């Protein structure tokens, strides 16, 4: 029990703290004896097995159902393409418009095409002739 404390509002000169009463544990404090619970009927095995089977089946169905879900639609996010850099402008040389240069260009194209063509004349394949008469063989 806490000592009484008088407040200033009561009377300041009459505050005398009283010593706390020593705690005495209650006597004969004992845990009540455990009373045996009344005998409960045991759960049958088949019920436990049925519960397990039921739970397992539900779990399998859930897993299969979740796998059969349609694939989520992937929305393509359009990424902005970078702006291509402009083609550099090249200054034509003094040769570019000369007739000799243009003739050279034409000659190169002409000879390149000629060299790409087939080289052997197919009309020159030698004839295939039988050299032996084989009159003695049957």
């Amino acid at each position, binding site marked *: 029990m806490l000592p009484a404390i008088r407040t200033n509002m009561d009377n300041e000169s009459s505050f005398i703290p009283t010593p706390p009463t020593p705690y005495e544990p209650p006597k004969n404090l004992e845990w009540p004896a455990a009373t045996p619970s009344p005998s409960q009927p045991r759960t049958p095995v088949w019920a436990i097995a049925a519960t397990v089977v039921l739970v397992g089946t539900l779990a399998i169905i859930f897993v299969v159902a979740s796998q059969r879900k349609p694939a989520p639609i992937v929305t393509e996010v359009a990424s902005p393409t970078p702006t291509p850099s402009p083609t550099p402008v090249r200054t034509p040389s003094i040769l570019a418009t000369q007739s000799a240069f243009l003739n050279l260009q034409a000659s190169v194209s002409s000879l390149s095409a000629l060299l790409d063509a087939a*080289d*052997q004349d197919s009309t020159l394949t030698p004839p295939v002739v039988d050299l032996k008469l084989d009159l003695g063989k049957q």
Partner: protein
Amino acid sequence: MRRVLFILLPLVFLLLTGLWRRVAATSAQAYKDYLFQYDLYRQYNADFKVARTEYFKFQSLLSQNAALEKAKTVLGQRDELLRAYLLLLNEKLNEDPGLSTVEKQLYQRLITSEITFLQNHILLIPSIGSLDDAESVSGQLTTHYAILYASMRQTMVALSLGQLAMSAKQYEQILTGATNLIRTNRSGFAAQKQAVLDRWLLSVTDKKSLYQQKIDTITKANSLIKGSSPEEVDSLYAKVRKDLAEAKQYLGEGMSYMQELVNAARYQD
């Protein structure tokens, strides 16, 4: 009046008969003749094989005589066919612009020699009196055929060399033109650009040198195309054809470098 008729009549005759066209034998005409002879040979050869089969089957005098007649026909036609082919090669040599006169004469001498052999061989055919004679006469061509075939292949290589020579001549003209053009307008390019153009010119010149080395190798190898059988000749011929393809490839690569040079020279930078 008589004089005019005397001059005009032969001309009219020539125009009507088309004889003037036959005087200049072109390779196109020679090719048509060769194809005609080839068709005849195939026909006579097929007839001979039928007659030979019947002779083997019946062994009668009648079948023997028939086989002998067909053998004589096919032997004669075989010689005519080979002669027509050699004449075709001869016309091709005449028309080839890439070969020199000396080179043409060398191969034409080979052809003339073989044509002479065939003409002599065909003269033996009327004297064939038995199947053994036919075998003997046929054997003479069989023995000589490897030499004849080698002459054919050598001439074919020569014709390919002539075509390449024409291409090489154009190549040289283009290279000379490009060199002069670059040299004349050199000052219009920056130093770095000049170096680029010089490198391309050098590459083009190098390819020409490689081509020439290959041609020298081919010319030497062509004279060695010989053998004891057509198969042996063909294996040597195949190697020479491979070298011809490589020589052509050098020219092609040179032209691609020339194209790069043209592209580089078109712009200032």
